[in-house]
């Protein structure tokens, strides 16, 4: 379980301010949604938390330690995992191995051990395989474990990304538009999966999503960005009726939510 605190986070690309002075807290074991118009800076926000981009200014604190200047793989070691808006699987590698790559941090094997084939290494390897398979079962992809990741359908690839992220045993999971390209029924199943992950695996979740049905149903807390700035935050009901949010993001369709 973890708490994430973001303080005055700013990111500029040349003249463009993608994130401007964003401050927010994520409570342990909660689901927080980050929403906002396209180009508002949501993905950029994730990128800074995971170390893909260095913040221009501001700080990111995970469990009382700053992670703002860490490299992506160091962030991963601290227990943050993510999925990507445009899917980034290891395409030419099997589904099971994709998940096993996610276990990188937890396999305590070195070069020498691997070469010698020490029993300890073999045991871990065997465990990892089983664990990976279990995760595939968890997201409902076990039937495809020997397929190449690139051969999966779009929706399946999205779920594989989640399984791979879970393999890092994160305490904080960032999902970037997990429901994109899914039909309402598939979205419903995804909603259930996310809820299960939160409850069964004790993971704090922050997600970016444009599917308001999912967002409203699932989130404890919603943060709205627009033009890189935080324009609103609060519970689903607050957001639904927030005039600024309606104007910038929800549109008149908000009424139907």
């Amino acid at each position, binding site marked *: 379980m973890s708490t994430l605190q973001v303080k005055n986070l700013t990111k500029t690309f040349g003249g463009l301010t993608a994130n401007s002075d964003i401050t927010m807290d994520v409570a342990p074991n909660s689901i927080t949604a980050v929403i906002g118009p*396209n180009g508002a800076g949501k993905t950029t926000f994730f990128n800074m938390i995971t170390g893909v981009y260095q913040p221009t200014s501001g700080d990111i604190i995970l469990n009382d330690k700053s992670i703002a200047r860490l490299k992506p793989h160091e962030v991963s070691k601290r227990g943050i995992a993510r999925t990507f808006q445009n899917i980034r699987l290891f395409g030419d590698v099997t589904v099971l191995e994709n998940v096993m790559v996610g276990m990188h941090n937890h396999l305590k094997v070195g070069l020498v051990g691997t070469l010698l084939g020490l029993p300890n290494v073999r045991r871990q390897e065997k465990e990892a395989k089983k664990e990976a398979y279990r995760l595939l079962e968890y997201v409902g992809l076990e039937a495809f474990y020997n397929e190449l990741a690139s051969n999966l*359908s779009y*929706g*399946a690839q999205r779920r594989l990304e989640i399984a791979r992220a879970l393999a890092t045993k994160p305490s904080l999971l960032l999902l970037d538009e997990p429901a994109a390209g899914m039909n309402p029924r598939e979205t419903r199943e995804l909603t259930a999966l996310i809820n299960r992950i939160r409850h069964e695996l004790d993971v704090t979740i922050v997600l970016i999503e*444009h599917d308001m049905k999912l967002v409203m149903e699932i989130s404890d807390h919603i943060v709205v960005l627009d033009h890189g700035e935080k324009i609103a935050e609060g519970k689903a009901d607050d957001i639904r009726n927030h005039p600024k949010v309606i104007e910038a993001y929800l549109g008149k369709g908000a009424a139907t939510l």
Partner: protein
Amino acid sequence: MSLLELKNIETYYGKIQALKNISLTVNRGEIVTLIGSNGAGKSTTLKSVSGQVKLGAGSILFNGKDITKLPAHDTTLLGIAHVPEGRRIFPRMTVKENLMVGAFGVKNKKQVQEQLERVFSYFPKLKERLDQKGGTMSGGEQQMLAIGRALMMKPDLLMLDEPSMGLAPIIVEQIFEIIKELNNEGMTILLVEQNAYQALQIAHRGYVIQTGEIILQGPGEELLHNNQIREAYLA
């Protein structure tokens, strides 16, 4: 008269059969939507029309002309625009250049200019970002660009593959508005959507496709109230 007609087409990827005996028609001036779950074959249908994949069997008529064997670069010249799934904008070209590539087949310079203005009127944001590289735009911005790029060729038939994917609700609304508007101006539209609810609301007719086969078809309104569909795609 039907603008586009698919007669019993079958399409394969290697040994995998993606489409089985699909027949559908799109009449001039209509919005027709194609819905179905992941991997059902929606995108493949559009690709078959635009000539990106070869047909195993069947034939396709556009405007009464047989286009079954035409490659993509020729079907587009006949007036079929295809906005591909996942936007596929040219990442290292600027917004302006992306739009100009869309007008590659258009000989008339004045028409290009006119279309450009129209695209800007639908998507003012593109005008603000004329010199940004396509690849650095946000998802939604890219989607607008992709549609704008297709409009540059002033097509008779606009095929959209999941245009609402990854877009903010307000933009989705706008996009559906724009689709309606385009249709009102006389453009025929074939729309593939996961967002069945909204798609069926604006469509004149719809087809439901499942594992490569059409399992249902009818007016949009009717499908919207069909229980089977509500169960599978709308709930």
